[in-house]
């Protein structure tokens, strides 16, 4: 990797640490995308990309986005789990469009979108 890139990284690190945007429990929200074969076939990669794009575009800090495998609800894929504080919500059929709305209204705004939640 070129030296210039490493310099960029140093700056990014300083800025992030100043905002305490670190990996551990200080994250204000956790978003988990299911990425089993079923999720991938249903479009989970593009859902994940839409979430990352929204975070980048709106400069949303303190959100930890990770992945998990198949959770056995294949018919509802792509599935995204959002945890804000202790409250966990599982969304089904999360298209990139829905993902952008979930980031804005639930992750940032704190209001879950009830009609997209998997209830069973």
């Amino acid at each position, binding site marked *: 990797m070129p030296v210039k890139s490493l310099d960029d990284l140093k700056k*990014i690190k300083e800025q992030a640490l100043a905002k305490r945007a*670190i*990996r551990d429990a200080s994250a204000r929200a956790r978003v988990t995308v299911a990425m089993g074969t079923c999720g991938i076939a249903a479009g989970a990669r593009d859902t994940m990309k839409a979430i990352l794009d929204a975070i980048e575009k709106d*400069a949303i800090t303190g959100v930890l986005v990770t992945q998990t495998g198949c959770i056995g609800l294949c018919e509802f894929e792509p599935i995204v789990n959002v945890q804000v504080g202790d409250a966990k919500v599982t969304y089904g059929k999360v298209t990139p469009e829905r993902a952008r709305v979930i980031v804005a209204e639930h992750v940032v705004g704190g209001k879950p979108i009830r009609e997209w939640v998997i209830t069973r």
Partner: protein
Amino acid sequence: MLRELALHILDIAENSLNAGATLVTIEVIEDTHADKLTIRVADNGHGMAAELAARVLDPFVTSRKTRRVGLGLPFLKQAAELCNGRLTIDSAQGKGTTVTASFQHSHIDRMPLGDLPGTILTLVVGYPHADFVYRHSVNDQTFEFDTRPIKAELGEVALSEPEVIAFLKKQISDL
């Protein structure tokens, strides 16, 4: 059905991570002179016993507890064989697994590579505790991306921070 080789790569890498891999090396080798396309995913996960490795291409064999079928590798094997290629799995318990799929590059039925940078970005951010090496070559040109120097520099900064996402996207620009 997965319609891009990039989605198959994501699917195989998910297996690697479920097998406890801490380093996953993804290679896409395009040799247009030999008319061959090879994709390889190598991991240092816990590997499989010879008996299981011989059976994972059977769609009714999976280690998953949530369902009784595993379709990822059988579909990729079929796709490779339809394009005059093959799929091989080398695995050793305690050492890791390497999956290699080859295709006739120009074959009319060969799946497009698809969004390779999207697959790599998803894996890198989605599995912050694993490292990834991505190498894509087209004849004598090679693009390489390695998360290890980036993570050494970032330390405890989360990979899903907006500035880091922007940085990673720029780094994974590919050929």
